[in-house]
């Protein structure tokens, strides 16, 4: 407890990842804490962090096992917690041995657009920029009719048609297998937007949602309201300030990046954690025990526009 995190980007001393690791361990430890103990338990912040990462992971997995065994409801363990545990397991491996994929179960998508907005909030996407739209379709004729909802993120293709067309090599597949846009290199020519067969790319014209509303004074006003729109974001593991045009996303082509800034900090992508239908899955397809590995082996799996040979890393179940 020595750091003073009054500055947003103060390093967090690995606490974030470690915090994730010790969640389960802490739960086990705290379970022994009886109600009505004396005011001070004698614990300090440091005693919380004494577990090594390996010990913490083991404790966490033990907690997961306990929860799985506790079949008190239809859902013994939330998919979110299983995937988070698997994510931590994958992060313990070398980068080259991980294969990040996303699976979207259309049977579970309730068409809420929670993922769309979680993504907008995570990356502070301005008007006109959407990484993860959800398509709402009606199928059939009354009364034999139903609806289908199709979330459509970037497919993170293994053979991406978008990268080769970039005249300045600003977009490329990075070491995590994610198609990245380098905001310092991108010249905003938008050739990649035309090249993507999935419509996964949009352009940041620098708009905000609250501009041209009302002046401050009696009302809160546009300038102050914009506070949240210009708050720091962390795409591609870099801190971006929307006010600073040099490395800001403004004037660039933008797209889904599997939230690698979250993933490398032990968190699932924003669209995955927020999914209220539990329709979106993320994980390491190289891990045979992972949930995504189970799912992509199902007979009802498919990928969009497979005939193009793009080899998407986003799978659908239908």
């Amino acid at each position, binding site marked *: 407890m020595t750091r003073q995190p009054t500055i947003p980007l103060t390093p967090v001393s*690995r606490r974030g990842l470690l915090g994730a690791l010790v*969640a389960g361990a802490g739960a086990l430890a705290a*379970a022994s804490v009886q109600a009505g103990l004396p005011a001070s338990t004698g614990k300090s912040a440091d005693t919380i962090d004494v577990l090594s990462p390996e010990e913490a992971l083991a404790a966490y997995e033990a907690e997961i096992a306990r929860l799985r065994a506790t079949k008190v409801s239809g859902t013994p363990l939330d998919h979110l917690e299983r995937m988070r545990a698997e994510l931590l397991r994958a992060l313990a491996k070398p980068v080259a041995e991980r294969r990040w994929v996303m699976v979207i179960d259309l049977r579970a998508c309730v*068409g809420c657009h929670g993922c769309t907005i979680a993504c907008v909030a995570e990356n502070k996407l301005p008007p006109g920029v959407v990484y993860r739209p959800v398509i709402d379709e009606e199928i059939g004729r009354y009364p034999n009719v139903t609806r289908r909802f199709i979330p459509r993120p970037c497919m993170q293709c293994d053979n991406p048609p978008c990268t080769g067309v970039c005249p300045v090599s600003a977009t490329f597949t990075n070491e995590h297998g994610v198609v990245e846009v380098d905001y310092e290199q991108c010249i905003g020519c938008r050739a990649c937007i035309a090249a993507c067969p999935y419509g996964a790319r949009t352009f940041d014209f620098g708009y905000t*949602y609250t501009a041209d509303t*009302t002046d401050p004074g*009696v009302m809160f006003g546009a300038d102050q309201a914009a506070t949240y729109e210009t708050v720091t974001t962390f795409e*591609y593991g870099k801190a971006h300030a929307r006010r600073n045009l040099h490395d800001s996303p403004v004037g660039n082509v933008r797209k889904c990046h599997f939230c690698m800034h979250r993933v490398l900090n032990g968190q699932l992508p924003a669209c995955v*954690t927020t999914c209220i239908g539990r329709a979106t899955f993320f994980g390491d397809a190289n891990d045979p025990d992972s949930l995504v590995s189970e799912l992509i082996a199902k007979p009802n799996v498919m990928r969009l526009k497979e005939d193009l040979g793009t080899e998407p890393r986003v799978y659908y179940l239908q």
Partner: protein
Amino acid sequence: EAPALELPLVDAANSIQTVCLQCNTGCGLKVKLIDGVAAKLEGNPYSPWTMEPPLPFSTPISASGSIDGALCPKGHAGIQTAYDPYRLMRVLKRKPGTPRGGGQWITIDFDQAITEIVEGGDLFGEGPVEGLRALYALKDAKLAKEMANAVNAILAARPEEKPALVEQFKRDFADHLDVLIDPDHPDLGPKNNQFAFVWGRLKNGRGDLVQRFVKKGFGSVNANGHTTVCQGSLYFTGKAMSEQFDPKTGKFSGGQKFYWQADLGNAEFVIFVGTNHFEANYGPTPQSPRITQGVINSRLRYVVLDPRLSKLASKAWKWLPIKPGTDAAFAMAMIRWIIEQQRYNTRFLAAANKAAAAANGEPSWTNATWLVKVKDGVPGKFLRASEIGLTTVVEETDAEGKKTKAYVTADGTRFSFDPFVALVNGVPTPIDPNDPEAAPVIGDLLVDTELNGIAVKSSLQVIYEAASTHTIEEWAAIADVKAEDIIEIAYEFTSHGTRAVADIHRGPSQHTNGFYTNFAFYTLNALIGNFDHRGGLIKPTTYDRLGTKAKGPFEVEKMTNGANVPFGIDLLRTNTAYEKSTLFNGYPARRPWFPLATDVYQEDIPSMGDAYPYQIKVAMFYMSAINYALPAAQTTIEILADPKKIPLIITSDVMVGETSTYADYIFPDLSFLERWEFHGSHPSVPWKVENIRQPAISLPNWPTVKVFGEEIPLSFEALVLAIAERLELPGFGPNGFGEGIPFTRPEHLYLKLAANIAFGEKEDGSDGVPPADYAELEVFRRARRFLPPSVFDEAKWRAAIGNDEQLWRQTVYVLNRGGRYQAYEKGWKGDLAGNPYAKQINLYQEKTATTINSMTGDHLIGYPTYIPAGLAADGTPIVDEGYDLHLVTYKEAMMAKARGIADYWLLALMPENAILINRLDAERLGLRNGDRVRISSASNPDGVWDLQNGTRKPMIGKVKVIEGIRPGVISFPLGWGHFASGASDIVIDGVTIPADPRRAAGIHANAAMRVDPVLGNVTLSDLVGGSAVFYDTKVKLERVG
């Protein structure tokens, strides 16, 4: 390897757990902060609303930072509700010389505004206006108590006795008659009642503050909520079904204003009736995964009754686009089939009392076997044992010399009341409903006989006969569904033991027959005995925030320096029967009375308009969009706009919202991310919980004010405390919680409630949470380092709970987690609910059957039945020739009903709403997708919102031609088509605040909804359950340019 960048947002000290209020579900929120700015909202992982199971409650807060729960789109956009450019930051006063609704305002100093609303005067150049002080007439609690007792005697007296008692009252209180509204009608109560407080969305905490302010402080009975605009009849069906027999009075009382819902995480078969868990209800975030995962893993299949193909219906086994208003016909058909096929749960239904239920291992029981007296074919009161000589009455004198009656059977069994009767193998048997030590009574289910010359039927027989008034085919024809579907669904419903459930909500409730429709579906559930069962019907359970159960640490309701005693008939006529009041003057009453409901929102303003039962002189609206949200809400605008009808209107609002537009004073409020509340639970939640909303952010430059010498944020609390200070209301000030215990800051109340929750419900403290350790305390402090001292001052917070270190640490432990959540496993006990209702369920309602409809003089029906929907207040059907489309509404997952308009991320998803219409209707009317149409109805033939300020906003919207809606029905999603809330220009101090056209987009067709033809200034209502009627209007569409 280390990540390239370590996110500050995964540090627990950069987040505060609180509770969402973008809708009323109450999902736990994690507010991630960067330099005090809410950078991102996530689900609070400790909350079972956002993960199932959630993080164990014992997980250290420092370990939770990187763990996020799920959250719906509205939840994420909560940031924009807080940082809305149209957030009001100064107190506004209607510009003198300009009319209400004119959009002309001046800013006014907070203290000056308080002075004006308290003292009154010629505030607007329109003549004198009475302030709150003039209405704070009766302050003497002793006198109030005496008057209240005398009024109760008048109400209880026979009609012919009342005049003499009123005269006696006037003599007895001759020196104090000036405090009354009308000495000739003392049952109207004191002038204090002419202050009415009306709320839209009010949660506990602030709700406790309102009770303390309006009732115990000011002494008005009029603190009225909005229940009936949501699903009022569902609440009041629940209340009627949960009334319990009180042996002391011989009557049914104590019914809870609540309802049951399905345990969706465990159900195997569900009939969803007019409820859309993927889009609305309580709510998408917790309920969706229970449904989707249940379907995918083959645990669950379900049916949806809804004229619109909701998102929920898109994954259903069967979607039945039922005819609106006929849901009860469907239920009655199922009841008939299940009884005739004997596929009901005999064991559950035959248990006639608590003792029998206990013998069966059931927590709850019904009165299915109780015998009802039938006169001229009409079921009335329950048979009492003495009426057939089953008991003899013995007069006794107890030890204190008090005379009592005992009822003794031939075998010597004694009852302190005249017991109810069931047949047991044909033998009349007395029933003690509630005594667990009484003889268990396993009654005969279907009884139709005569005992001692009295015609009697069992409750279940009465229900069966109601269900047998039509054949299955006839019921199917009424509902316009297939009879084979009804039978197939009834078969499936009775094939899963107690893990099948009919889940109802707003859809069946908001019709004129809502009460009986809900009653029919709950009866269906009772037939399979799924109450209090895993996968069946469950009820909400919360930790006691008031300190009542543990008698501390803070028994908040008892902690006071005096309290007023409010009495008298309330504005909505819900606490008194018409016949008992001195206003009784034959039928129909001037406006309906609601003896079985409360919080009848649609009656607030029309009653003020008619000054019935009396004039309201000061109306205060809190978080209310009453003139937007109600059906036929344009009728309320006419009244709101007229200062002669309501002389002073005050609102507490985050912006110049729809209701605030017609206010005289608007006091800015904090958004849900800046304030305290105790959000409670919901009947879909199996666990005992309490969700604590707490300040997570403070807006830059947010103003503070001084009340009782303390600097606090400009807020609803500031408004209440400042009025209390001026009027010296009991329960507030330096000794507000008792000698030396101040109530001068918001946290003086709220932290006591939080501490009670942390302490638990056992007097010895053994039910408490662990105390926060050093790390927890550090995270707690650091997470709040950007909150200004007017909001967070640790010393002041500690002082609010008496500087008790242990209690402080326990409170921190709970606040760190955003509430208190029972362990996941405790949600169930084997096959039963872990937190059961465990009381009697009334399938026949004696209290309802003996209640009189104030508009017709008829007795209400005490059993579930189908009554056609769409009736006027006098009970006559409404026929609107020439209007052939049935209008209903729905919710989109990405829009709140009245408050989502500030959320631009959501508006970008759906910039305007549309009127859904079936292709067949569109073809018939020559409409194409995207055509602009005007909606009109018989009670709004021009199809406009008359804003009473020269603007007549037409109800014009685009049509969306779809397959997934019943032909003949059209629907629109609520939340668009605003006329205030940033949707119209306003002028403040001569400067125009421009409207944002995005906030005015779309259509709000509530003004087309049917005005009651008898009353003329209000929507149609369910006069039994109180619901405002959204779904019984016929309209037409006309294409415009």
